């Protein structure tokens, strides 16, 4: 029992710091962004499960099983003394495990509800303030000079371009931008981002949460870039990114002093579009996938072992 708790504790610590730090510094995610995105999700999920699992294993040690401990402890809430074999350490561990699980779940629910409210509001505004773009389904043009493109995910989706963007980009570049947004929508990137956003909000003091959220954001951009590349080739999107992301169009930002986007990210995306590195080898892919599965499966199996 102690060995399982120690294993989960080590896994939780590894997934909380060294593993994500190494992943955020690695160069291969740009060559396999989908796989890297899956690995980030496994790290976040596996980390949370290991942390909770470690506490559960420690807390249920006197009885040896989760169900048995629940049967012994839950009646004590209503009436009667807490069974003597459960000491302070066990009770604290179980309280922390339950608290952490509830905290994470509530944060996810609250973030999802807020995002849903925001989307509904966006659809209302889009329906009244924007015009449909001819020839592009579910794409709307907003009469505003600041060049911007974004998409509203959900059951009903919309891609919104501003007049400023339409004026600055060539037709090919515009098609590439729409394909980029559409890839975000088709691959449900908002769900991954939502989970990491919730995780970050639930554990703001957690050193790795910010880094993870950032890495995941960049990976979804790269996946959307790949979608645009499949639709229009790399050149139009690189052109659009150059014009908006890095160089900025002198006329587009008028007397604003220029916009400073996240130069590093845009440069990384541009470099990738200009010369995509060799795709990650088959063996490395399989190894990464196995690691992702093991990370999530270990705490799950450990908890299943002591369920009864």
């Amino acid at each position, binding site marked *: 029992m102690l060995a399982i708790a120690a294993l989960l504790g080590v896994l939780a610590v590894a997934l909380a710091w060294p593993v994500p730090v190494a992943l955020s510094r690695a160069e291969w995610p740009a060559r396999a962004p989908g796989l890297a995105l899956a690995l980030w999700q496994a790290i976040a999920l596996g980390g949370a499960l290991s942390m909770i699992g470690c506490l559960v294993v420690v807390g249920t040690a006197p009885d040896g099983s989760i169900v048995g401990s629940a049967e012994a402890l839950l009646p004590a809430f209503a009436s009667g003394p807490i069974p003597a074999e459960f000491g302070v350490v066990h009770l604290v561990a179980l309280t922390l495990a339950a608290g952490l699980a509830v905290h994470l779940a509530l944060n996810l629910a609250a*973030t999802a509800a*807020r*995002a*849903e409210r*925001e*989307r509904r*509001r*966006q659809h*209302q*505004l889009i*329906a*009244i*303030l924007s015009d449909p773009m001819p020839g592009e389904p579910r794409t709307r043009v*907003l*009469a*505003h*000079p*600041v*060049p*911007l*493109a*974004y*998409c*509203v*995910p959900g059951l009903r989706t919309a891609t919104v371009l*501003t007049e400023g963007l339409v004026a600055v980009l060539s037709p090919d570049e515009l098609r590439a*931008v729409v394909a*980029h*947004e559409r890839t*975000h929508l088709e691959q449900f*990137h*908002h*769900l991954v*981002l*939502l989970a990491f*956003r919730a995780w970050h909000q639930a554990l703001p003091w957690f050193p790795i949460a910010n880094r993870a*959220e*950032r890495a995941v*954001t*960049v990976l*979804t*951009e790269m996946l*959307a870039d790949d979608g645009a590349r499949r639709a229009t080739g790399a050149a139009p999107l690189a052109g*659009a990114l150059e014009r*908006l*992301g890095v160089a900025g169009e002198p006329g587009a*930002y*008028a*007397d*604003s*002093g*220029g*916009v*400073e*986007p*996240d130069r590093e*990210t*845009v440069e990384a995306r541009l470099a990738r579009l200009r010369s995509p590195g060799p795709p990650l080898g088959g063996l490395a892919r399989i190894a990464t996938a196995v690691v992702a599965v093991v990370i999530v499966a270990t705490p799950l199996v450990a908890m299943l072992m002591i369920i009864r």
Partner: protein
Amino acid sequence: MANLGELERSVMERLWASDAALTANELRDRLTLVGEAGEAGDRSPATTTVLTVLARLERKGFVSRSRDVRPHRYRALLSRAEHTAEMMHEVLDRASDRDAALARFIGTATPGETDTLRRLLDELARR
């Protein structure tokens, strides 16, 4: 018959085009006038439909109603440009929160970037 969303849009366009506040009947007449030639009568929405649309728009914060006279008169709360600018603010705020409600194209949001865009929006609004 147009769906409710399209009707909301048409009603807002009439309100934005009008200097004075309008009653539901006046709005209905204006909606009829722009109906396609020959089928104008068919395309006119019923006053109750216009009232429903106005109630929805009021709830969504697009329309204000003056209740001191009968029939009630309606006007647009903000101009189209003001509303659009406000919407852009919301989009930029969401993007910097990375709330995952939206995803956006230009770069990934950094505080510096959204601050600059926000300043630009304010400058445009003052003009």
